[in-house]
C-alpha cells in the first residue's frame, strides 16, 4: 500500500511533499559543502543548461532566481528586497533580483539556505530574461567574478538553423571557459548521461502534469509550482528522475482512489505567469473554497517542451549539446505571441479549462507585457473568459489579496454566466 493511500475521497498530502523538502535541503547543503571542499561554483540563469556541468568532475551550480523564489515562499522576500533597496537598487527592479542582491551583499543573512556560495563564474542568458545579464553584472563588478553571457535569440517562430548553430558555438565557449578556469576536463559522455536523465525526468514531469486533464483534476498548478524546484537544483541527476516518477505514481494512485486536491471542483482555471510564491497556500486555499482549481500553468507546462508545444522534447541519445541547444527556448518568456498562443490553446483543450487567469507581474516584464494581447486572443478566438490580476512574484508588498480576489470572483461569475 502506498503511504498516501487513504479511504476514497479524503485528501492527504502524499510523501512527495516531504521528499521534496528533504531533496531541496540536501541540494543546498550539498552545494555549500562541495563549494567549501573546493568545487568550481557557477551561478546560472534558470535556462542555462545545467546538464553541461554534469560533464565535469567538480563543478556545482546555483540558481539565484530559484533561491529568490524559495526566500519569497518562506516569507523573507520583503526583508531581503529592502536590503537591496537600501543599497540603492530601485523598487521597480525584479524582486528576484532584489532578493538575491539583498542576500548576496549581506552575507546570506535572512536566507533560508544561508545564501549561496560565492561564485567562480557567472553565466547569464538573454532569452528567458535579458535583465539577468545586468543583474549578474552587479556581482561581476562588485566581486570581480568573470561573467559569461549566453545570447539566445528571442523566438517569434520555431528556432532557426542559424540560431541553433549560434547557440552551439556559445556552448563551446562555455565549456572551454570552465575547463580553463577550473582546470578540469569536460567529459561528453558524462554530459550525455545528464541529458538522458533530464529527458527522462521531463517525461515523468509531464506525466505528473497530465493529471490536470482528469476531472476533477488530480493536481493543482500550485503543486506544480512547488514541485518544479528540483529541476533547478538537481537537473541531470538520477534522484530527479526518481522523484518525479514517484510523484507521478503517487498522484496516479490518488486519482485512482478518488482523492483530489479540490474535491468539489467546479471551475478549472489556467494560470499565466510565474507563481506568486508568497501566496501559494493562501491563494490555493481560498480558491478551493470557491470550488475553483487552477489546474494548469504556462510557467510549468512549458518545461521540457519545444516552443509552442506541450509534450517533452525527448533526447535521442546522440549529441547532448544539440539537444540542449534545441531546447534553449523551453520556457515561456522567450516566446512571441503566436507561440505562446499555440501552447496555451493546446493545454486549454487537453485540460478542459474554463477560464484563464493572467497574472500581470510587475517583476517580470518579458512574461507580462504580451498578456493583454494574449488575453484578447483567448477571449476572442477561443471564447474563454479571462481576467487579469496584479501580482509580483516575490515581493508581497506589491500584491493586494482582496483586489486580486475581487477579479478572480468576477472570473468565476463570468464562467457561470
Amino acid at each position, binding site marked *: 500500500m502506498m503511504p498516501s493511500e487513504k479511504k476514497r475521497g479524503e485528501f492527504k498530502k502524499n510523501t512527495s511533499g516531504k521528499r521534496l523538502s528533504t531533496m531541496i535541503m540536501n541540494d543546498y547543503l550539498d552545494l555549500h559543502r562541495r563549494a567549501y571542499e573546493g568545487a568550481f561554483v557557477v551561478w546560472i540563469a534558470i535556462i542555462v543548461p545545467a546538464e553541461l556541468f554534469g560533464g565535469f568532475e567538480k563543478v556545482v551550480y546555483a540558481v539565484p532566481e530559484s533561491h529568490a523564489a524559495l526566500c519569497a515562499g518562506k516569507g523573507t522576500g520583503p526583508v531581503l528586497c529592502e536590503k537591496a533597496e537600501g543599497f540603492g537598487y530601485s523598487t521597480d527592479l525584479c524582486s528576484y*533580483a532584489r532578493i538575491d542582491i539583498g542576500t548576496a551583499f549581506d552575507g546570506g543573512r535572512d536566507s533560508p539556505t544561508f545564501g549561496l556560495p560565492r561564485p567562480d563564474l557567472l553565466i547569464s542568458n538573454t532569452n528567458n530574461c*535579458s535583465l539577468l*545579464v545586468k543583474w549578474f553584472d552587479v556581482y561581476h563588478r562588485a566581486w570581480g567574478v568573470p561573467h559569461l553571457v549566453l545570447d539566445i535569440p*528571442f523566438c517569434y517562430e520555431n528556432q532557426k538553423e542559424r540560431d541553433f548553430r*549560434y547557440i552551439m558555438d*556559445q556552448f563551446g565557449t562555455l565549456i572551454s571557459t570552465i575547463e580553463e578556469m577550473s582546470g578540469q576536463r569536460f567529459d561528453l559522455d558524462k554530459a550525455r548521461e545528464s541529458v538522458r536523465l533530464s529527458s527522462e525526468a521531463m517525461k515523468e514531469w509531464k506525466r505528473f502534469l497530465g493529471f490536470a486533464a482528469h476531472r476533477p483534476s488530480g493536481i493543482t498548478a500550485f503543486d506544480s509550482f512547488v514541485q518544479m524546484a528540483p529541476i533547478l537544483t538537481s537537473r541531470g541527476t538520477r534522484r530527479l528522475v526518481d522523484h518525479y516518477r514517484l510523484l507521478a505514481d503517487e498522484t496516479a494512485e490518488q486519482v485512482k482512489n478518488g482523492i483530489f486536491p479540490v474535491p468539489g471542483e467546479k471551475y478549472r482555471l489556467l494560470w499565466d505567469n510565474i507563481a506568486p510564491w508568497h501566496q501559494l497556500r493562501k491563494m490555493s486555499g481560498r480558491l478551493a473554497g470557491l470550488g475553483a482549481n487552477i489546474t494548469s500553468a504556462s510557467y510549468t507546462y512549458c518545461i521540457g517542451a519545444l516552443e509552442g508545444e506541450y509534450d517533452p522534447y525527448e533526447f535521442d541519445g546522440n549529441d547532448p549539446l544539440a539537444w540542449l541547444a534545441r531546447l534553449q527556448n523551453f520556457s515561456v518568456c522567450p516566446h*512571441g505571441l503566436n507561440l505562446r498562443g499555440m501552447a496555451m490553446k493546446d493545454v486549454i483543450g487537453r485540460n478542459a479549462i474554463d477560464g484563464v487567469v493572467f497574472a500581470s507581474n510587475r517583476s517580470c516584464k518579458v512574461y507580462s507585457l*504580451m498578456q493583454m494581447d494574449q488575453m484578447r486572443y483567448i477571449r476572442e478566438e477561443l471564447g474563454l473568459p479571462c481576467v487579469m490580476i496584479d501580482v509580483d512574484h516575490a515581493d508581497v508588498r506589491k500584491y493586494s489579496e482582496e483586489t486580486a480576489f475581487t477579479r478572480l470572483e468576477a472570473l468565476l461569475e463570468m464562467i457561470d454566466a
Partner: protein
Amino acid sequence: MLYLYNDIVIYSGSRTVRYGGCPRYGGKGGGEMQSFPDSLVDLKSQGHTLIGCFPLYPPLELLHSFGLTPVVLWGLRQDITHLTRSDRHLQPYACGVARSLSEFVLSRGGELLDAIFMYNACDTLRNLPEILGSSLDRHGSPIPLFRLHIPAVPLSRAFASDYLNEGIRELIGELEKFTGRSFSAQTFLNSTGLYNRQRRLSRDLERLAAAGRLRFSDCSDFLLSAGRMSLDDHISILERTIREFNGRAPGHQGVRIMLSGILPPPVALLDAIERAGLTVVANDIAALRRSYDYLPAASADPGAYYQDLYRNHYPCTTILPSADSRLETIMQTVRESGVQGFIFVGEKFCEYEYFEIPAVKRMIEAEGVRTLELEIGMDDALNLDAYQTRIEAFAEMLLHETRGSRRDNDAV
C-alpha cells in the same frame, strides 16, 4: 518643412518657443509647435519612404542606402501624452519609451510609416513587434516589419561576428525585396560617409554647448531632431548652427555638471538646470552622446562596418558587452570634463539603467562628485515642479560648495 528650419538660423535673440523638438528663436513667423507626427507628415509629403526604427542604434546607413528615410521612434513622450491605444496592449509598468512609441505606431503608424525595423534590446521592447504587428493587421493597416538580432556577446568572438554578418545579409535580402532595389556597395559607402558626417557635427555641437556658446537645452533639441527629419536636412542644420555659434563668445559658465540616462530630461527640466546656475558640460545620454560618439571606419561592406560599429560603440546599458568599459568611460569623462555634479535622469521602469546606477553612483561619489537621481515617468512630463525643486536644491548645494572652496583658496 524646410522653411521652419530656415527660421532656426534667424538667431535674433532669446528663444521664445519650441516646436517639433527643435528650438525656435524669436523672429518672423511666431511660435508654432510641430509634433513628431506632423514632422513625418511633412517628410511623407516630400516623397520620403519612412521606416520607423527602434531601439536607438539601428543600422541606419544600410536602411538609408536603400533609399529609405529612417526615423528613430524614441523619446516621443513630449509629443504623445494620451495613450489611448497603447494602454490596450501594455501595462502601465512598461517604460514611457515603449508606451509612447506604441501609441504612435498604433495611432499613426499605418498612415505614416512604410515599414518598421527593430533589433533586440530589453525585455520590454522585444515583445513589441508582434503586439504592434498583430494590432495593425487587425485594423487593416499592416506594416512590413524587419528584425535583426545583434549579438549580445562580444563580437571579437568569430562565431558572433559571423552570426551578425549572416543577419545583415538576410536583412539586405529582405530590403531588396521590399524596395525593389539591389544593394549597392557604393551607395552604402556614401551613406556611411553621411552618417559619420552627422556624428562628427553632433560632437562638434556638443563641444560648443560645453564651452558655453549655446545652451545645452538648445543643443539637445538640435541633436534630437535628427530622429524626425531627413539626414541631409539634419546635416545642413547642424552645419549652419555650428557656423553661427562658433562665432559667439562663450557664455557664463555655471557649476559644471554631467547628465546620464536613456533620454535627456524634459525641456522644462533642462531649462531649470540652466536657470539654477548649472552648466551641462558632458553627457552620457543614450539618445545623445552614446548615439554619435563613435565613428566607424568607412566601409563598403555592411558586415565589416556593423561589426566595427557595434563592437566599438560608445558604451551603453543596452549594449550588453559594453558593460565593462562603461564605468571606465564615464569616469574618464567625469575627470576630463571636471564636473562637480552628476545627474542621473532615470527613465521610470528602465531596468537596464537602474541596475547600473548604484555602481556608477558609488564610483562617482568616491571621486568627490555630487550626484542627484531623478526618475521621469510617463505622467511626469506634465508635472515637473517637484523635480525643479530638487534641481534647485542640488544646484544650491553645489554653488555653496563652490563658493566655500573659492573662499578657502583665497584664504590660503
